[in-house]
């Protein structure tokens, strides 16, 4: 029989994760892929989406985009054993190029549905999932990233990528919000705590068929200083909040990356440069 303690390992996973000395997910050092976006994020017959990634690297990087006509799993170590010769001819080539961005286009509904059936899809009237693969390389490092795309065999429901409002830091004594610039470096005093706010731009949160709204989640990344949280949900005004503690000193500019996801495949981001000065 199933043991009543079968939940224990799950709890252990959580407890064991506390107090670790391992690197923090939200602190960026070296080559990282922080997000992969498809615009549009849901793809219908005859449509084309642009794929791009938020890549951070101290060195020049090489990109290689490809896709798999099904979703690979951890149990198979994410190996896609699809062969170009057996792929339905109506579908794009498995190799999507080596640029920083890539295009992925779909055939007409009939051809797409036929391809779905040829691939053994179970519910081809609704479409099927495929997987985008991005390999990012430097001379010394490599990161592989995956993103799942749902290919609709009929016009897809509304699904927009979320949009970020400008991130601001809150000057607590004056209760004054200061927008961070995405264009020029932001000059902030070293060693201080900066309450941060990031939100979805108006109208960027899709309404679901049941009347509820998408659940938006902001992921925060920095390459210096310390964040209080790694991810925070967007809850109305003022949106997602966090606190960044600036380091005591840093000669090189620092960066803050804010990634917004809607939980349904929609992703967007903003990057900010920060220069520290004495308080």
């Amino acid at each position, binding site marked *: *029989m*199933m*043991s*009543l*303690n*079968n*939940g*224990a*390992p*799950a*709890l*252990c*996973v*959580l*407890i*064991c*994760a*506390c107090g*670790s*000395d*391992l*690197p*923090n*997910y939200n602190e960026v050092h070296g080559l990282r*892929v922080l*997000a*992969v*976006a498809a615009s549009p994020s849901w793809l219908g017959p005859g449509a084309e989406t642009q794929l791009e990634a938020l890549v951070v690297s101290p060195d020049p990087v090489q990109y290689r985009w490809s896709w798999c006509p099904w979703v690979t799993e*951890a*149990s*198979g*170590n*994410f190996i896609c054993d699809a062969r170009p010769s057996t792929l339905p001819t109506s579908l794009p080539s498995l190799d999507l190029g080596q640029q920083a961005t890539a295009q992925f286009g779909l055939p007409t509904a009939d051809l797409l549905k036929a391809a779905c059936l040829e691939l053994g899809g179970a519910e081809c009237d609704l479409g099927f999932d495929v997987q985008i693969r991005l390999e990012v390389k430097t001379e010394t490092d490599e*990161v*592989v*990233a*995956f*993103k*799942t795309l749902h290919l609709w065999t009929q016009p897809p429901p509304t699904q927009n990528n979320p949009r970020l409002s400008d991130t601001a830091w809150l000057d607590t004594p004056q209760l004054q919000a200061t927008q961070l610039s995405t264009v020029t470096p932001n000059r902030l005093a070293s060693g201080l705590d900066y309450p941060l706010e990031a939100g979805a731009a108006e109208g960027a949160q899709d309404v679901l068929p049941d009347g509820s709204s998408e659940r938006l*989640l902001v*992921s925060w990344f920095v390459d210096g200083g310390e964040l209080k*949280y*790694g*991810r*925070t*949900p967007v809850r109305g005004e003022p949106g997602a909040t966090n606190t960044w503690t600036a380091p005591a000193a840093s000669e090189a500019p620092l960066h803050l990356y804010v*990634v917004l*996801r809607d939980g349904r*495949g929609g*992703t967007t981001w903003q990057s900010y440069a920060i220069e520290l000065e004495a308080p």
Partner: protein
Amino acid sequence: MRYVTLIPLVLLAMTTVALGQALTPPVLTEAAQPEYPPAASQARLDATVVFHLDIDSEGQVEGVRWVQTSTRAHVRHAVVAPEVVAQFQLNAETAARRLRFSPAQVDGVAVPVSLQYTFTFLAPEAAPTPPQVSPQAVPPPIINLRGVVRAAGTRRRLSGALVIAKQGEEAFEATTGPQGDFRFFNLGVGEWTLLIDASGHRTGRDKQTIVQGELLEVSYYLQPSPENTYDVVVQGERVEREVTRRTLSTQAAATVAGTMGDPVLALTDLPGVAQAGPGGGRPVRGSSPQDTRFYVEGVGVLIDEHVGGFRSVLPSQMVQEVEFYPGNFSVKYGRGMGGVVDVKLKELAPDQLHGAFDVSLLDAGLYLEAPLGDKAAIAVAGRRSYIDVILGAAIPEDSDVKLTTAPRWYDYQLLLDWRPAPAHQLRLFGLGADDAMELFFDNVADVDPDASQPTARQANNSQRASLQYRFTPSRTFSNDLRIAMGRDAGQTSVFGRFTLGFRFLNLTLRDEARLHLHKTLNVTVGVDARLEASKYDVHAFRPPKEGQSQDTLPPEQESLDAAGTRTDPYVAGFVEAEWTPTQQLTVIPGVRVDYFGMGRATTFDPRLMLRYALHPQLTLKAGVGLVHQAPELDEAIAPFGNPDIGPARALQTSVGAKWQPLDFLSGEVTLFYKHLDHLVRPVDDADIYRNEGRGRVAGLEVFVRQQLAFGLSGWLSYTLSRSERTDGTSVGQRLFDYDQTHILSLVARYELPANWSVGARWRLVSGRPVTPFVGGVFQEDRDAYEGLKGAPNSERLPMFHMLDLRVDKRWVFDQWALSTYLSVSNTYNRANAQDISYSFDYRQKEVVAGLPILPILGVTGTF
């Protein structure tokens, strides 16, 4: 000789009686009177000669071991020649061999026993005359001193204690009866010195003044000697039948360092038991913890330990001993390919209200037992933890994780014994246990982006009620019937992403009839039926199976839902013979037929055990047999598993030898081999699971044990083993999850003067295998990395070793006893790896350490 009295003293060593079993003591049916030595007449010597008698299962005296002879001369300044003393002994021994008893019985079966027997010679009044039995010749006795002898600390009445009253050259003896009482007749007025001597206790000494015409009543409380404890009256051991059966008495485990005195927890230190993983339990001989069955008096119990493994669900005061079978067990046990643990509860026989309390930094417990008339007794117990208060205070206010309900447990028990007649015994046992733990995460999105709730919670509740009726109408037949009901419920919820809700209702019926067909043949026939009604409501991913690692919650898309009820009958019949063709050889063939409701299969398990006493100190043993085990519930219900999955099978074999050179010292070596097939294995198709796994476990167990002697007790256990499995034909051999090459435990306790004792436990265990992650990929949809798994169980955790220490100090008062202890777990603060934790991108890893040094101060009291 005026007369000779025959005083059977106390049943001292019932070498064939299992603690907790119903013993019908032998009764003297044919007395024998020793001749009064004529040479002693002149000095008018009284004498007492004490023997240990070995009574065989026919009631005949098989062995006579002299214990002591004491004499008292009525003639002042008489010289007692050694030859005269020897003559008393010789004559008494001759008579002892002519005694006849009704056989002692255990559960209606005649068994050999040992008892202490005293012959008392009283000198003739005048010149030597031929001895004759003439009670009428004794002057009418006038009792002028009487009393009761009890054990200090427990107030237990001590029977068989020797009380000597001395006044000048004159001395008289009395022996306490079953109620610890003694009487002296016709003591002269004046001051008398009293010496009180009882086995396992320090000699008491007192002075009392006898006044003409007055009856003096006294009570004596004897301090226990270091070799004694407070709550164990009879230390005995059932004759071993199984190839490997290891017992831990409450007494032996009481002060084992690191176990809080809990015999169930001390099982970890026996051969064959491996170090558990994060989920706890007892992996035995390479099998997973779920394969070991836990029983209380033959009734299955699902949850035997509280959360964290600090306590079992049973109070040690209610436990007589814990039997552990790592394999090749009797056909009365089944449905588990690992080991069997059967807890034997204490046989209640309180003469008055007794109890115990235990207060430590972890929890507090209370135990009470009392007689209910002459034929019944009751015991109740309860325990509640408050570790939640301590942990709650230890976690900083600004911590990201808070224990809203820290590990919290409580349990309660009731035991009722009623023996309306010697042939009938009824026993009612109730058990309840509850555990809960809840974590609150300040910002749960950091831990799991898919989380919808900030809490992770686990709660279990388990209850059992069993009624046992033991019927022993004759020495050739006995029957043991048990009916039990149980309810186990569990609820686990992790961030709203993972919810497990279970409720198991079960009804158990066990009946064992034992027939003594011939002097050399006993047969046991039985039925073991269990009806299990399960209700489940699950939203979870498939739990990782053997060889599959898991370090994060899988993506929400992999979650499955299942809700429903099912009722599964498990019915087994078994028959076992115990044939002893010669005194040296015991052959125990048996067969068990099981029907598994889950798996819908009928299985046939033949088993055979052999024992051969090559020498009185050396016994050879061997066993072979099949065991089947039902699949786990999740493996048999859709959409998690395969409703057509069947039971797995193990062929268990073992050979061994036990050598007991001294009463208190034994050594045992066992070689075992276990072949496993029809193991459940995950497959990458619609079946999800199939019975295609195979495995093998081979090893060596060494167990050297010293019962308390010279102040020292303890044991050494060592297991060398290798356990491997293969899934299908295309996958090579790999290690089982619980393969641990070396497992060494050293347990020792030493009694110091002034009721101090010190204990230590040191364990050295090979790290268990783990499936490593060899890299990771970034999953945009989850905003997280996912690990690339290496070969299953291709790495090991670092070697585990830990030293636990314990110091006890006892204060024994007349009416009660107080002990305080300091138990220090992980004394040298070793960061033992419980698991491996990986960095977010699986490029770095570190060990997840177990508990650091943990001192626990406690106080126990008994009365």
